[in-house]
């Protein structure tokens, strides 16, 4: 197949990627959008198989079978609550593939140049080729190892707590500079391919150290950022190979990741630098906690909550990561159906950073068959909060902490929250009064209109359902 036809096919694939992402603008068109993206990928892969340099297909198809089997099994078996770690893992594989392809391209060019190929010699001296190879290697390695650490943290294999030590920022800067220096050494002595692997090794350590200090609730930012990196690594590989479809697809993904990262940071009123390098999640002073909660906490029972719900006209449920941990989404659906059948309006208020990745709560509730028009964004629900009879907070904490509005010195000051405190009655379902990720007490729990229902999220919802049915 001629170069021109292959490139035209790549153009078609690129257009399909753009149209595919465009389809994701609405749940109705999203399935078709995703299929268009997949079709674009299929076209790109098929025409590439006709590339003139390919002399053997055995290994290619071996790779397809192994990778396809692993990918398919993961995709089918994964639980929706575990989606953040799966996406984290996929990010990592994308970055890993980019660094391997860039490394292989360098070695191929080097061997051809050593055999006297003039074009290859020129390529080794070309800044686009060499700088892109280094960028691809560094970004790819940071993405791969950073994603593996993120996966480990989300899966509970690595501590979710921020791992911090003195001088960590200096160490990271040294690693970044070190990997760039090794890259420059590779450019100056292209035949020393070992410099590439040293560079990748240093960048790998950097990737690990970048994600280790990030705590659990900041994971949405990190996952979105690594998503962006995986795209940028692909784009860099596109510059290595002078391949347009890699550049287009990579930059689309890079842009997507950056937008999501930005949305997540805004939703916490923190800068990206603060999330990556700032301290957060320090332990609160116990005295302060005592002052806020002493004598003001009203514990309630599932029966009392059931009575409240039966007389309510409008109920809003605010889910958080705790709902995912308790696997309570199906119980929540049952409560939703029961209340709706009794004529109560039930909606869900979803904070952008609820859960461990962007959109995490929406996926869980969609899995449980909650219609998507019942899933409300924070900005949509907040102005109506005063008309809400009962707000149920299920496994969320910092995102409903009114301190964000009132105390400018709080670590979450200025963070947009869901104003559940403005609802007539607030029911907080929670195991204990322990603080959320920000490490600060939540005065919401001590408000006059707040009732605490202590217990496991799923069990409590089920008991409320039973109480309503019996009542």
């Amino acid at each position, binding site marked *: 197949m001629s170069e021109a036809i292959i490139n035209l096919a790549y153009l078609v694939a690129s257009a399909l990627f753009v149209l595919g992402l465009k389809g994701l603008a*609405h749940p109705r068109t999203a399935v078709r959008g995703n299929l268009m993206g997949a079709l674009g990928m299929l076209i790109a892969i098929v025409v590439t198989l006709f590339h003139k340099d390919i002399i053997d297909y055995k290994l290619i198809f071996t790779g397809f079978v192994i990778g396809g089997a692993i990918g398919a099994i993961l995709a089918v078996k994964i639980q929706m609550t575990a989606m953040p770690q799966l996406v984290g893992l996929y990010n990592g594989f994308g970055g890993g*593939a980019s660094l391997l392809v860039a490394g292989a391209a360098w070695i191929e060019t080097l061997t051809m140049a050593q055999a006297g190929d003039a074009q290859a010699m020129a390529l080794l001296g070309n800044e686009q080729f060499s700088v892109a190879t280094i960028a691809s290697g560094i970004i790819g390695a940071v993405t791969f190892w950073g994603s593996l650490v993120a996966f480990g943290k989300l899966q509970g294999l690595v501590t979710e707590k921020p791992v911090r030590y003195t001088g960590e920022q200096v160490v990271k800067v040294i690693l970044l500079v070190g990997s760039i220096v090794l890259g420059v050494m590779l450019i100056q002595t292209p035949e020393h391919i070992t410099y590439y692997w040293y560079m990748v090794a240093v960048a790998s350590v950097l990737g690990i150290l970048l994600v280790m200090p990030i705590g659990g609730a900041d994971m949405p930012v990190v996952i979105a950022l690594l*998503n962006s990196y995986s795209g940028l690594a692909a784009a860099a590989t596109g510059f290595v190979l002078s391949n347009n479809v890699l550049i287009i697809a990579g930059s*689309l993904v890079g842009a997507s990741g950056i937008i999501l990262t930005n949305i997540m940071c805004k939703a916490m009123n923190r800068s990206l630098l603060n999330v990556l390098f700032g301290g957060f999640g320090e332990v609160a002073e116990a005295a302060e906690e005592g002052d806020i909660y002493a004598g003001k906490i009203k514990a309630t029972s599932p029966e009392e909550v059931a009575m409240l719900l039966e007389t309510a006209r409008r109920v809003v449920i605010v889910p958080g990561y705790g709902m995912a941990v308790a696997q309570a989404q199906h119980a929540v659906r049952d409560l939703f159906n029961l209340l709706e059948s009794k004529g109560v309006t039930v909606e869900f208020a979803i904070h952008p950073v609820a859960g461990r990745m962007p959109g995490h709560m929406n996926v869980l509730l969609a899995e449980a068959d909650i219609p998507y028009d019942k899933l409300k964004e924070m900005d949509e629900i907040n102005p109506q909060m005063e008309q809400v009879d009962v707000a149920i907070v299920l496994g969320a904490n910092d995102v409903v902490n009114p301190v964000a509005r009132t105390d400018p010195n709080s670590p979450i000051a200025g963070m947009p929250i869901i104003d559940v405190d403005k609802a007539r009655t607030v029911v907080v379902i929670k195991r204990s009064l322990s603080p959320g990720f920000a490490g600060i007490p939540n005065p919401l729990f001590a408000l006059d209109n707040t009732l605490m229902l202590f217990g496991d999220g799923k069990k409590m919802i089920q008991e409320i359902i039973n109480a309503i049915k019996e009542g």
Partner: protein
Amino acid sequence: MTDFVMILTIFVLAIFVGFEVITKVPPILHTPLMSGSNAISGITIIGAIISAGSQHTALTTILGLMAVIFATINVVGGFMVTHRMLEMFKRKE
């Protein structure tokens, strides 16, 4: 150097297209957006295919094979899991 400018042009324009298209994705679809865009970033697979199939040296062939495996996991897994999620959103129309 003109080649580089042309490629850079494509890169910059694609980023603009990306921003325009993706800012229109609603928050409820952010998770499928991530997994779907992730699958698209598996486009590196075409570079991997050429490395694994052209067999310049033993080392590049092995690197290519590994890259094909990684990228295929990304592509196949990414599109499939996105489809699975989007079907859940579609079901309740």
